[in-house]
């Protein structure tokens, strides 16, 4: 065997002196190298790269006594558990160890202009329960947030377990971010998106005594799609997820990492210009893709066609229901209504043209199409596919797959869980809490909880209205 790695692996020990295995997990102040090795062992187990003591020794370069001690500590802390016996190589069969995905739980939610989704996730990002309901946009964001509290409360009550909520993950469209808030910093534990007077996240932190991560919804859906595809063995580490709804947005995964953008708002492709409309978008620009090919735009066009008789099918649906939904258009197209088929095909081409440009620039291995519009059926998807293939470079299309998402809105909740768990277990943060066994003891989280408690105690700021 090569002697080189041995020399190097032992180097870190030299300045520390010999490490004496500690027997008191989670007690007292642990030394740096002890903390470092705990983090290293934890990461090997959580990522699934190692599941026996021998594997951990081999991959971490830590000595046998140290690994044994760290494993005992992690089991005592409740982060790791022993499983069945692994295959024996020579001597006794090794006892497998695995990450305890039920050590804590995560509240997850998605909130957009039409729908609220809530769920409870374990530390592997798996959902225990999920629920969705339509929201009345007219009642404003405050009502939705109140609903969020109610649903979280209900879930915690319906699924009572003796485990703490370790964190909350929340996804919301960038268009709902408060764009004028100064100092928008989405990396902070309590990211500063504000609604009404009180910051959204502060309410959640105070109510559930846990840190909150807020992210662009489409980015969470991207993580969710990636996570589930990855688990199913369909790992393509470079992919573009496109959400086709009222808004058209995208999430980019490169080499297995989410691309967030400088302000966390990467993926606003609905505002890419097409030259097929002179209409002014809510963003202030002209001819945005969303305006001509978003779900709202399509329903608007269909409504006109139903009223002026261009589509007999739609006219019938409108007469029967008093309104038109996107699904009606897809359904009519499948039944052979030429107007609806043409409408969906035209929108597919417009979307495809924009995606072709992005595919050239980004060279993804897979484009996943999700959202309500992608569920209207094959006509729109075929038009998108065909247009992308026609307008991209051969090297880009050579192995490009264009597929339809099957996850619906679950992608957002699953993504919220995965993102939050990864944030809690990120190696730089993990070091701050691992010796206590819970991220709620991380100094930053403690400081956040203290700050929120403090600010709740303070009297409300004086009303700035002129009559005071």
């Amino acid at each position: 065997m090569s002697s080189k790695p041995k020399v190097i692996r032992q180097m870190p020990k030299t300045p520390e002196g010999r490490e004496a295995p500690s027997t008191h997990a989670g007690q007292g102040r642990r030394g740096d190298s002890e903390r470092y090795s705990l983090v290293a062992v934890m990461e090997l187990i959580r990522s699934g790269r190692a599941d026996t003591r021998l594997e951990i020794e081999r991959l971490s370069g830590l000595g046998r006594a140290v690994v044994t001690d760290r494993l005992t500590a992690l089991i005592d802390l409740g982060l790791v558990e022993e499983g069945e016996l692994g295959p024996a190589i020579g001597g006794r069969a090794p006892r497998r160890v695995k990450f305890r995905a039920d050590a804590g739980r995560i509240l997850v939610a998605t909130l957009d202009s039409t729908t609220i989704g809530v769920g409870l996730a374990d530390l592997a990002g798996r959902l225990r329960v999920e629920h969705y309901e339509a929201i009345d946009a007219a009642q404003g964001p405050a009502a939705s947030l109140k609903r969020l509290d109610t649903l979280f409360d209900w879930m915690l009550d319906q699924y009572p377990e003796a485990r703490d909520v370790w964190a909350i993950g929340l996804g919301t469209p960038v268009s709902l971010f408060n764009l004028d808030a100064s100092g928008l910093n989405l990396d902070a534990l309590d990211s500063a998106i504000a609604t009404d007077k009180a910051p959204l996240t502060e309410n959640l932190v105070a109510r559930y005594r846990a840190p909150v991560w807020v992210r662009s919804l489409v980015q969470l859906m991207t993580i969710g799609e990636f996570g589930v595809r990855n688990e199913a063995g369909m790992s393509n580490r470079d992919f573009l997820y496109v959400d086709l709804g009222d808004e058209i947005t995208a999430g980019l995964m490169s080499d297995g990492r989410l691309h967030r953008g400088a302000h966390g708002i990467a993926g606003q492709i609905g505002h890419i210009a097409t030259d097929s409309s002179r209409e002014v978008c809510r963003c202030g620009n002209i001819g945005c893709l969303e305006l001509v090919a978003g779900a709202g735009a399509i329903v608007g066009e269909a409504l006109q066609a139903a009223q002026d008789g261009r589509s007999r099918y739609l006219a019938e649906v409108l007469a029967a229901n008093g309104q038109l939904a996107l699904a009606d258009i897809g359904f009519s197209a499948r039944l052979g209504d030429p107007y609806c088929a043409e409408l969906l095909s035209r929108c597919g081409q417009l979307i495809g043209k924009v995606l072709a440009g992005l595919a050239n620039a980004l060279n993804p291995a897979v484009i996943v199409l999700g959202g309500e519009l992608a569920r209207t059926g094959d006509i729109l998807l075929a038009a998108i596919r065909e247009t992308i293939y026609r307008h991209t470079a051969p090297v880009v299309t050579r192995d490009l797959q264009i597929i339809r998402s099957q996850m619906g809105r679950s992608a957002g909740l699953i993504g919220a869980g995965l993102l939050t768990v990864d944030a809690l277990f990120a190696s730089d943060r993990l070091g701050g809490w691992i010796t206590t066994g819970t991220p709620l003891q991380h100094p930053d989280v403690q400081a956040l909880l203290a700050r929120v408690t403090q600010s709740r105690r303070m009297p409300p700021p004086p009303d700035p209205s002129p009559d005071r």
Partner: protein
Amino acid sequence: MSIAGLGPHGERGAPFEQLDISEADAERARLACFRLCVVLHTTTSDWAKQALKGIAATLDVYGASLDEVVDCGFQIDTQIRALGRLTDSAPDAIISIPVGGSAVADAHRRVSRAGVKLALLDNGPTGLLPGSDYVSVISADNFGLGTIGARLLSPYIPPAGRVGILSYQADFFATNEREIAFRKWMGSERPDIRLSAIKFPDLGSLAAIFTAFLDANPDLAGLFAVWDLPAMEAVKVLAARGQCLPVTTVDLGNQAALALAAGDFIKGIAAQRAYDQGVAVAKATITSLLGRDPPSWIVLPGLATQKANVAEAYQRIWHEAPPAALCVPKAV
């Protein structure tokens, strides 16, 4: 009748009327002689009997055979074994009502992995995805049913009264949706009402739990049960104590229908259309076996039923003449 609830993955529901099989497709189906199996939580409830009737009648129309019907007796293990055994017998499709959430997810996933089409009734276990794991969930609009239950109960509750929710303590999508909707309607339309959950893990323990609750809460003014059997159990407890409370629930079972007609306890029922649901799931399965994608969330709106329209509703739901007892109150 619009659809109030969203699907297990947040989908907008497709009305079951949209499931239409063309004559050409019907002919293709008849030539193919598809073989199907059905796995139900129980086959003894009125709902199950009616759903089965709807399934069988529809399969007949399309020349498909119903090879086997399994009653799981609400048991997770029984369902897991049944799914495994039926999958091995390689039918073209299985129609199942999952008796739990994540616990039965893997067993269902294996059905479609083995190349057998899977259509689900009412419940989409967490973690299963449409397309790869199953064809469609064909469901009552459970959210709408909960809303109807709240709307029908509200007039009987005095201001600031206390209402109990007989809540199924299980990981079950359909009953969860009903309870959430009931609470939501009460929260926005009757914020004065105080809600208390009475959680029961199974029907056998309900009487004791409910009795204890009644002892501790003498001010209870009304009750909502997430389906008809617990409602009738609760009515038995109330009758035995000589306590009269207004109750609303979901499912127009025979006993519940009679109780509604009698008018003493049951004041309203959000009725599911079991027969139609059976028709819909059979059609969706055939559609998928013919190589077409049915919508992933197909919904049947509920029917608000009170004493005045119980006979009519019965006929509409069960596709048969109502028992004489239902017609009596109408003649009075």
